[in-house]
């Protein structure tokens, strides 16, 4: 009987020790496929680790990091100053930023669209609602249909900051809840234009982009993103509240190492080095 009781106590103590470690990742919809591939590959190699991945947008992920409901926030834009201050109010840290991949933020056009390239000035005009007809940028005489992301999206914020110089989107832009939704809409709408991660580009064409009318336009290819020729490239980040340690550190080290970065290329994004 004594042996039984002892065994039960030991089993109770040992149970949490042998239980799997759970890491939660929340945030960027742009990064969701990448996060899922990383999680699948890492869990395959480390059966004692469970990685839960959810999207919702970079803003949602950062909020989750601030209120303590995720271990890692995935963000397709850097944290803003007011977000860092909110994190500091609760945890007395401003978080740790880890670049995990690079993305060429792409401009999507329908495959039948004859437009060959777009400049920042033209893109700003289109998304601000100043240019409303494709013929003004080298296309057919037809109305431009704008597809955009919701304002909790890091892609929305990054495109606004870099391409629209921080100005507001046209009220006619239709907000869609994920990059996949934007790609789907542009693929079906021959007058549509959208933007998002390069990895999602299926059934649409990626429009070459140039920073000004005087320079050449480039596609978001590995070479162009790496060399800096493609003008809308950005880092995709992981954020943690404090410097990563334990299983979280092991996972992030793996993500930024050769195996994790090989997955980055397979998914359609670009390695950080």
């Amino acid at each position, binding site marked *: 009987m004594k042996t039984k009781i002892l065994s039960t106590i030991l089993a109770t103590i040992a149970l949490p020790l042998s239980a799997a470690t759970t890491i939660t990742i929340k945030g960027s919809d742009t990064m969701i496929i990448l996060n899922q591939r990383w999680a699948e590959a890492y869990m395959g190699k480390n059966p004692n680790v469970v990685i839960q991945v959810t999207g919702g947008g970079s803003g949602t992920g950062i909020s989750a990091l601030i209120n*303590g409901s995720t271990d890692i926030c995935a963000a397709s834009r850097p944290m803003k100053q007011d977000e860092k*201050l909110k994190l*500091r*109010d609760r945890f*007395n*840290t401003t978080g740790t930023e880890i670049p995990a991949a690079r993305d060429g933020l792409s401009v999507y056009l329908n495959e039948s669209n004859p437009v060959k390239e777009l400049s920042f000035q033209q893109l700003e005009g289109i998304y601000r609602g100043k240019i409303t007809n494709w013929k003004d940028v080298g296309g057919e005489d037809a109305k431009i249909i704008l597809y955009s992301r919701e304002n909790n999206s890091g892609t929305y914020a990054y495109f606004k900051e870099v391409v629209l110089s921080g100005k507001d989107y046209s009220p006619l832009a*239709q907000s869609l809840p994920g990059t996949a939704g934007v790609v789907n809409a542009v693929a079906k709408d021959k007058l549509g234009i959208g933007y998002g991660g390069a990895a999602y580009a299926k059934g649409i064409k990626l429009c070459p982009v140039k920073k000004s009318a005087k320079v050449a336009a480039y596609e978001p290819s590995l070479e162009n993103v790496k060399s800096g020729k493609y003008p809308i490239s950005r880092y995709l980040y992981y954020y943690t509240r*404090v410097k990563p340690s334990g299983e979280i550190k092991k996972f992030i080290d793996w993500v930024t190492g050769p195996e994790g970065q090989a997955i980055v290329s397979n998914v359609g994004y670009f390695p950080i080095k």
Partner: protein
Amino acid sequence: MTKQKVVTKIGGLLVLGLVSVRAFGQDTMTMEEMRAKLEEMKSQMDGMSETQQTMLTDVGNLKKLKVSGYIQARYEEHQDHPVDATTPGATADKQDSFAIRRGRIKFTYTANPTSQYVIYPDLSTKDGVTLKEAYVKLTEPWTGTGINLVFGQQNWFFGREIERSSSIREFPERSRVFGKAVFDGERDKGARIEFPDLITPGLNLKAGIFNGNGIKSPQTFDNDKYKHTMGRLAYSLGWLDLGVSGEYARRFALTSSGNANTAKKHIGADAFFYYELPVAGGGSLGGEWLKGEGVQSPAALQARNQGYFISEVQNLGDLFQLAARYDVYDPDLDVDGDAIHTTTLAGNYFWDDNVRLTLAWEHPVTVGFNEVKDDTKTLQFQYKF
């Protein structure tokens, strides 16, 4: 019924049945019918699309309104504390009570990036609903830095503690000098201008002009012709925050010897250092200091005063936090031994994303006067959304 009629009827039914089976069993829909069906489905899809657009517009409008708030429900145990400040002389050796210290709800409506509406009532006071804040905030779109003009009833901005929300503070109450004496009520009616990221990122300048009465004063309008001015320059490096503040207010006061003009004027400085300990997590060490004349109320009390506090906060993992603060307030620098030294210790436990439990002990000591045993022990449950 004749046999012939029965046979005819059965035959008719069979023919009908065969036709029906044929119609059911194969795609007999004509091109015209298919077109009509497709048109019908397209109309339905268009209708759904229109409904979705309307819903998206409605949801977009709803997202412009942000509602937030918090409740602080407490159990407090006081040592030799007045039962009620409004009942003179009523004291008890020990008083313990349940209380709702704060019950607030904040409505923020942001229709576009250049303007914002804020109204912020407190529903927990014994006077019923009181207005904590109500203002219009304009953000200019031209410079790209977002200079703000805030007009209405709003926070003062002297130092760091005054502006910091009670819902995120590590201690149940502010320090004696900043929260209770010099800036009682922490808010006033007026206007301020904010220059975020002035010259360099992290450098912020604020300047404001207020009535000077605070929000605990019964007046709707200013009771004198004088105004209260305030300024603050702060710089944040992320791991280190530095700031200097100043205020000046001439005031009309009723004194025992008649009417008089008094002044409330202070300068102050604050510094907070943030660090990270392995395993434990983030922490901060810092303090604030001020020196000047006058208190918020009564306006007639014209004495030179000084105060400061030093605080240390340490997070222990994601769920626990320990905090200690030592604050000193000398209400009259010309009188010796009247300074109040207060030590506050607090522990916070974050139950979930919304709930925080706080256990705190506040121990004030007045050196040189008849020492009053007025320690306060607080157990607080806060729900914030």
